């Protein structure tokens, strides 16, 4: 039998598969024994060489089984997807090794060695994460310093919001209009009154006590609702024929887009009060909401402008030829089409807004990330930073990831309609 070991061929398929498989097996065995039993059976080799043995054996093995059009479907699939060249083979091996090396310890920290039971830091005896910390502080992470007895108000406010949003998805067009008007104009007032209280026998809760995840939602929801109309006006202003309005809009948009949000928040905290008559006090949360709204409106304006520019000129001309005025043309013809075009952009702006909310810590408001910061400095819970940030990161990730998935779906759905 004439096997040229350096040129794997289809004729001796089984031989090569057996030989290659053997090398890959040795490579994996070397690594696995090393990772899980702390025993290096190639240890008798020089240290530098022994370190690379899995990679060398693995590359060799993958080289030997790289046979094009072998006729074996599984082998072909493996070769195309993981093993198309030496370079790809090495990459495949490196990724596999990294997974084997890092995933089990991570899982151990996360789940298998983690502590879930108990109420104090002393209950965390395992070597993994101390989820007791998150469990004990969960209430604070969600509601901040909001009084326990009044938390049903936050729940109710969000319940109404979700019901209204849910209903507006399923309602027929006739009722949808009213639901959207309710959501945009009436709900903000109801929600704000419900949470802040002071009337109707509800206890007044000052905004300094609001916090946690619910504050994240409140800030994002209010800013989104408010920045939309402002951004729309700015976008129209930037495309206006009237120089004074155009330049004002350009200046306004570029000013906000050129500075970081943190300086805008600083401005709302220390500079804004200087511009108001002596003795007037505007609530901290409201100042922050105004700051974030103006900031995001500038970004929203640029997104909407993109949509306006993408519309063919014929749409404007057709609307004008029907005798429509500026506002009627924009609200009935132009904007509905333009907004539909830029749904991904709007979703991105909203995602950015949600991810920006933790910054309100600079004015002393603590949403989820801020509460984690506070909790980890509690003398009873020192050294819990990792758990806290991983939890907060996970929550934000779930929110942002599902939103981006939703917007992608929406985009797909609308693009097939066109």
């Amino acid at each position, binding site marked *: 039998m004439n096997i040229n070991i350096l040129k794997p061929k289809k004729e001796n398929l089984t031989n090569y598969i057996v030989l290659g498989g053997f090398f890959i097996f040795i490579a994996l065995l070397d690594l696995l024994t090393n990772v899980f039993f702390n025993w290096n059976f190639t240890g008798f080799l020089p240290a530098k060489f022994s370190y690379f043995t899995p990679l060398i054996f693995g590359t060799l093995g993958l080289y030997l089984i790289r046979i094009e059009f072998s006729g074996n479907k599984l082998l072909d699939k493996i070769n195309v997807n993981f093993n198309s060249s030496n370079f790809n083979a090495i990459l495949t091996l490196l990724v596999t090794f990294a997974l084997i090396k890092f995933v089990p310890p991570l899982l151990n920290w996360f789940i298998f060695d983690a502590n879930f039971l108990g109420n104090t830091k002393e209950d965390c005896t395992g070597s993994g994460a101390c989820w007791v910390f998150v469990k004990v502080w969960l209430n604070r992470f969600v509601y901040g310093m909001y009084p326990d007895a009044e938390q049903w108000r936050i729940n109710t406010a969000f319940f109404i919001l979700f019901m209204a949003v849910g209903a507006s998805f399923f309602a027929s067009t006739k009722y949808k209009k009213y639901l959207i008007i309710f959501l945009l104009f009436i709900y903000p007032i109801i929600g704000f009154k419900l949470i802040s209280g002071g009337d109707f026998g509800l206890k007044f809760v000052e905004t300094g006590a609001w916090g946690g995840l619910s504050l994240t939602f409140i800030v994002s929801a209010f800013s989104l609702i408010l920045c939309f109309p402002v951004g729309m006006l700015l976008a129209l202003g930037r495309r206006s024929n009237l120089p004074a309005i155009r330049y004002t809009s350009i200046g306004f948009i570029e000013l906000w887009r050129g500075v970081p949000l943190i300086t805008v928040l600083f401005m709302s905290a220390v500079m804004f009060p200087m511009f108001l008559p*002596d003795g007037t006090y505007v609530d901290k949360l409201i100042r922050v909401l105004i700051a974030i709204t103006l900031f995001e409106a500038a970004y929203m304006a640029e997104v909407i402008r993109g949509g306006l520019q993408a519309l063919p000129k014929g749409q404007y001309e057709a609307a004008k030829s029907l005798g429509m005025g500026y506002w009627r043309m924009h609200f009935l013809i132009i904007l509905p089409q333009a907004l539909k075009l830029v749904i991904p952009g709007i979703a991105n702006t909203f995602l950015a807004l949600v991810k920006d909310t933790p910054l309100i810590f600079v004015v002393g408001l603590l949403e989820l990330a801020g509460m984690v910061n506070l909790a980890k400095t509690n003398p009873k819970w020192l050294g819990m930073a990792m758990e806290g*940030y991983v939890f907060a990161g996970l929550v934000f990730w779930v929110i942002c990831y599902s939103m981006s998935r939703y917007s992608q779906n929406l985009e797909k759905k609308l693009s097939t309609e066109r």
Partner: protein
Amino acid sequence: MNFKNFKIDLSNKKKDLIPQVLTVLLIILAVVYFSINAQNNMGNRGISFGFGFLSQESSFDITFSLIDYDGSDSYARAFLVGLLNTILVSAIGIFFATILGVTVGIARLSQNYLIAKAATWYVEIFRNIPLILQIFFWYFAALRALPLTVDSINFYDISFLNVKGWYVPKFIWTNFSLFFYSLIAAFILLFFVSKYAKKQRDEIGKHLPMLPISLAILIGLPFLTFLIGGVSLSFQIPELNQLSKTVYVYRGGVSIIPELISLALALSMYTATFIAENVRAGILGINKGQKEAAASIGLTKGQILKLIIMPQALRIIIPPTTNQYLNLTKNSSLAAAIAYPDIVLVFAGTALMQTGRAIEIISITMLTYLTLSLSISVFMNWYNTKMAIKEK
């Protein structure tokens, strides 16, 4: 007839004029109202508007500075320290974000299933977690888990990583200026040589081996200064000193503070996800025929990417990537959250607390960021026009 037309014209102009005048009036009113209030408020606090405070003694210390600075220097110098620190972290961030972003972007399109999936998950994970949380994570959780000074992680006995930061060797130059000028001279020379090479190629079709030539110029000229110019370079390696029984410090070398490390890490890993998406979109935006045509004339995969795909894809990639660079620069202001002494922390934080000059300081800070943003966008626009299709 004429008269009628004139009338319509006039009314149209009036219609245009009213909203404009109203807007301008509104702005003027707001400005006047706010400045009267500001004047009253400042009068009540006994301060007057002005930038004279910049030359006063700052009397606070800054933990990390690229230039000499101590408490006896002026506020203007403190501002400069903060600005340089902002530029430093942005430059580091942009550098690594670009490398990582391009790599991940290309990896997402890899034929290798594992690589493509790994890159996709990298993007999905790091893009969807707020940047500030990532900074907190690196600073308060990951870097705090590093060993203490006494058992630092040792990199070949020249650089040490521990919970206090990363200690690397310091370059000690003699006659550094000569070396620096020789570098500049090398770049200028290189510019002319490459121009000459291009001319040769266009006119007589002669290919000069540009890679060895440019390497020779770039390495040879500065190296000459070592031989004859009296330039020398030595390294100061950080050394472990024992202060008392339990207190150890590293002396000598350069210490890179953990604030800078965590900020640069978080900024580049976060921004890299967006750059990766831009790169991917750019490569996908190239017509498939280009790839097939390149393959059919026998170019290798690497050559196709380098010579055919990338030059075209760059035109799609550059504009959104510029935006990401701008975002990174602006996001570096989150430094204030972990006490990295950037412009926001030093100037809009400490200096503002001490002087109470909110309006001046916040406006200077905002103007600085506006200038930074504008200069990056001007540079990238210039680069973009250079890369754009040149139609003859």
